[in-house]
């Protein structure tokens, strides 16, 4: 589904990702964990084409993401190619990034209407289904500013789902929320993981949730994969010293694994 091959990303002289390679199977749920600054967000942003890459290749659903063929030669992708590729991918951000000047319903229907030409009535019907799913059908006409953080994040998830992507990216979707509001968002995500066969990449500091959610956990440090495996192994029996010390600190800080 996703094949990342020798990916390099530098900001100026600083290499954030340094020759990273990994594959993701269709329908797989992947958790990316690791200390602050290890490059987790950067990977998701690159997959969403919010950053350019410095070197390497990414293949998504069988097509190159940042490259395309022209006259039999491989050339950097143009905006039209990126536009086509982006339709496979949805992303939910840490700070929701809802459109504050639009109602909840409009936030969800805007992209389907504009990018897929879905008729308004159909887009709204589908949006209401999604709001139903995230438990916010009664908030369709509210503005984002009138919602709590947890509600905002659930709307953001519905917005990403409205485009029916085959890959969903979640970047610390609960870390800007009050602890009491975290649960409602995680519940929605668990249902989503259980009910769909979407491929999902999740960056989180909630180790407990990563444990329950993921088929596979990737532990990052300094732009490289230090260790990967099923959650049971990573959390109960980490092999690498770096992973062990990271988990120890997280546990000491009061989080359950």
């Amino acid at each position: 589904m996703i094949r990342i091959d020798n990916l390099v990303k530098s900001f100026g002289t600083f290499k954030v990702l340094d020759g990273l390679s990994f594959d993701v199977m269709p329908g797989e749920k992947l958790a990316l964990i690791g200390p602050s600054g290890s490059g987790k967000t950067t990977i998701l942003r690159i997959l969403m084409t919010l950053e350019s890459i410095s070197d390497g290749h990414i293949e998504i659903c069988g097509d190159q993401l940042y490259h395309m063929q022209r006259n039999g030669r491989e050339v950097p992708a143009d905006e039209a190619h990126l536009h086509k590729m982006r339709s496979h991918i949805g992303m939910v951000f840490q700070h929701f990034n809802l459109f504050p000047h639009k109602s909840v319903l409009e936030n969800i229907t805007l992209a389907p209407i504009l990018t897929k030409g879905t008729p308004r009535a159909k887009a709204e019907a589908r949006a209401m289904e999604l709001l139903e799913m995230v438990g916010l059908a009664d908030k369709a006409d509210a503005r984002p500013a009138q919602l709590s953080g947890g509600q905002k994040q659930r709307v953001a998830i519905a917005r990403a789902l409205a485009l029916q992507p085959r890959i969903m990216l979640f970047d610390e979707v609960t870390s800007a929320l009050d602890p009491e509001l975290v649960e409602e968002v995680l519940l929605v995500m668990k249902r989503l993981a259980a009910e769909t066969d979407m491929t999902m990449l999740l960056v989180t500091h909630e180790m407990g949730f990563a444990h329950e959610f993921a088929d596979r956990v990737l532990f990052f440090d300094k732009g490289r994969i230090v260790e990967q495996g099923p959650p049971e192994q990573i959390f109960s029996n980490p092999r690498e010293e770096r992973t062990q010390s990271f988990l120890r600190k997280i546990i000491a800080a009061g989080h359950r694994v």
Partner: protein
Amino acid sequence: MEWDWAFVWQIMPTLLAGLKLTLLVTLLAAVVAAVLGLALAILRRSGNRAVARGTAALSEFIRGTPLLVQLYFIFYVLPDIGIRLPALLAGVIGMGLHYATYTAEVYRAGIENVPRGQWEAARATNLTMRQTWVHVIVPQAVPPMIPVLANYLIAMFKETPLLSAITVLELMNQAKSVANTYYRYIEPMTLVGVFFLAMSLVSVVFLRVLEARFGRMAK
């Protein structure tokens, strides 16, 4: 010199005629500034380095030199190269151009103040560049600009006396002419001051309303 109310009433119609012209010039120049400023802002974002740099340099030059001298130039020097503008038009263009360099900055700041996250969300929902501008950026960038733009409108109003240098009979020029005819200065000049103050107090209230309505929306 004594204050003479009878004289005040006598000159009032003349001054009001000047005030009318002042308001007309201000509004026309404001329209020019609003449109031209947008053009400058777009040119400054242009991908073509030379165009962007050139626009920036021109803006800085216009902003760094006095409007009065620019007006002299437009009115008295341009005819030498065959461009002969009527006084009113020259004034509107001169003021409009001068203030366009300010409104361009307002546009730029307004656009930059839309959080990065909004651009990214638009991208993540796969909107095209045009759709992003129309549906996401502009609706959020414009409301906070409105009070700032209104502020420049008021500033322009107060600079209209400069137009007397290019023979536009606006408020200040009318007042001077009245003063020179009757050799009384205190009344006409004070009235001009009162007019300006009254207009600007009204516009302060108007500004507060705009700020309350638009200023806060951007969050």
